[in-house]
């Protein structure tokens, strides 16, 4: 099983995210992360998602996506051709016994403390998904109160853009 990241430019229409996720669900594609946002143009939204599966599954997924009239452009993003990053907010129990260890780990991961009370610490971590996973596994030794991750944002290296190959 491989992880693939696909960036999809869609018409910025009401319910468009639902059209994509409905297709993923009914064809049982295994989507592990999804982000949707507005773009440089009001006409389009950008949806980035990760898919776990085999090569032929990915080809089928891309073909099915192209059949949705709202899909304008699709690009597969790989570690070589793109830059990816994710943001995580993690809330931990503020316990005097473990406070120093948390701070040491946060420093090593360049995590920033953005909220601090006598009962809790909220850290902000930015980086690739593997880094988030590592940080979470370190924090499992302590008491995690809450985690919120944005999902991966990915963009191609260089001057190429998704809008350059619109499929209209």
């Amino acid at each position, binding site marked *: 099983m491989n992880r693939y990241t696909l960036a999809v430019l869609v018409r910025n229409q009401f319910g468009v995210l639902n059209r994509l996720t409905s297709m993923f669900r009914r064809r049982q594609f295994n989507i592990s992360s999804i982000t949707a946002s507005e773009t440089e143009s009001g006409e389009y939204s950008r949806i980035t998602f990760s898919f776990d599966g085999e090569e032929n599954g990915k080809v*089928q997924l891309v*073909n099915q996506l192209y059949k949705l009239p709202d899909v304008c452009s699709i690009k597969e993003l790989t570690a070589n051709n793109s830059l990816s990053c994710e943001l995580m907010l993690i809330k931990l129990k503020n316990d005097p016994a473990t406070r120093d260890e948390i701070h040491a780990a946060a420093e090593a991961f360049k995590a920033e403390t953005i909220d601090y009370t006598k009962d809790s610490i909220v850290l902000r971590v930015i980086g690739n998904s593997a880094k988030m996973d590592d940080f979470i596994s370190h924090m499992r030794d302590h008491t995690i109160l809450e985690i919120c991750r944005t999902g991966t944002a990915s963009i191609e290296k260089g001057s190429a853009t998704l809008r350059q190959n619109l499929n209209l």
Partner: protein
Amino acid sequence: MQLCGADILVKTLIEQGCDTVFGYPGGQILNVYDSLYKYQNEINHVLTAHEQGAAHAADGYARTTGKVGVVISTSGPGATNLVTGIATAYLDSIPMVAICGNVPTTQIGTDSFQEIDITGVTLPITKHNYFVSDVADLADTIREAFRLAKSGRPGPVLIDVPKDVQIAKCEYEEQPPVEKDDPFAAKNVRIEEAAKLINSAKRPFIYFGGGVITGDAQNEVLTLAEKIDAPIGCSLMGLSAIPTDHPRFLGMQGMHGHYASSMSMHNADVIISLGVRFNDRVTGNRTKFAMGAKIVHVDVDGSELNKTVNSVCGLRGDVKLTLQKLLPMLNAEAKPTWMETVAAFRVEEESYLDNREGLTPRRAILTVNKYLGENTAVCTDVGQHQMWSAQNLKFRTARRFASSGGLGTMGYGFGAAIGAAYGTGERSVLITGDGSFGMNLNELATAVRYNVPVVVVIMNNGVLGMVRQWQTLFYDKHYSNSVLERKTDFAAFAKSFGADGEAVTSPEELDAALGRAFAYEGPYIIDCKIDKDEFVLPMLPPGGSMDDIITKLEVEL
């Protein structure tokens, strides 16, 4: 000119070349029906007994004409009643536009009376759907829906129009009918690869489906077969594209396909598949399917390539244009050894034919054949009668067979036969079973009201025959809920609805009854009594391969 949304809707349908629509009125679509009243000289509306019947009628109309079928319903239950009809069209790639009313936009999302999120409900069974929230978008939305419905791989598109949008006014300007997107041939490099593979074939087999009818490519298919000396088979959806008595045509193949067709495909070294999707009813066990063959696959929908069966050469493109480019690259070569093998399969198939006396299913269909004109559309429901029809009907003209292939919708046939009669302007034939017919027999009221000439032949065995066949073969003859034990007198039923009908028990009686039916003005029902333990043969057991084919009934009944 300033018009209200309802007028714009009807004017745009007329502008798009739509002359007949099927539907059923209700509270949230009343404004559109008022406009249909206003423009009744330009557009004909057929009122059915149930919205499902209307959707199937639009489907039957689309299959027989190649045009976009249009169905109109109100909100809520009217809209949900369309669902099976839309799904049927979706699975068989039939161009359709479904228009539903809805509660005013101000009430959307408040669970108003007869409010349903029909765009949500139909998301997985439409090519696309629209919720129109502004009357200014209405005409262009309908135009885009028509374009989408008929472009590429056709399919149904739904438009949900809230009542206030039907009332609101805006400027309307008539436009010419939208053209479908320009068809494109597959890439040259892929066509060259395909040509190389086909030129190397010793035992080529052409296997085509509904895409050849949609793409109007039957002549190219025949030219291809002649040039490379190949036999031709098809899926259920491909039936009628090639005349049944064409010497190269071996008929349908798959679970209940013709023996020679299935065997030739199984023994081919190159299978040229055109506008088909290798459904499980065709392939059986996919790991054992045509193991010795390399598959060339042409389809306008790229997602069909390598979806269920891996092809060596997948060509995404219009089948007609792609074949036109491919044909000059092929070597004309006779393959006498292969044709001898195919001929031997045909001889073997002859020996399996059911030649029993009496009113057997095969004799019944062969008798119907005598009455079919070149332009007569035959529709079926789903089950044993559908397979007997597919195996034994004599097809002469493309688009003169309509059957629910992908979804397998029992109850499809009557609505479709009404739509087909409108589509062809001629008498249509419905071959059905007592189970299927029971699902939507209410549409007899429609056929009577509009005096639609539909000859209904009910293969009446008192059981759900296909279910019974599986229960006999795979469920230890536990006939769980498949014995109907009804007391319906179909001839009396026909008369009570204002039609006519009769029951028959022999081929001679059937012949005479068909003579009366084809002379009758309006719908006519023939209740054709057959035995409850008739089988559809041959049969490839589900998940089986050609080694498991059942050609003769050896079950103790």
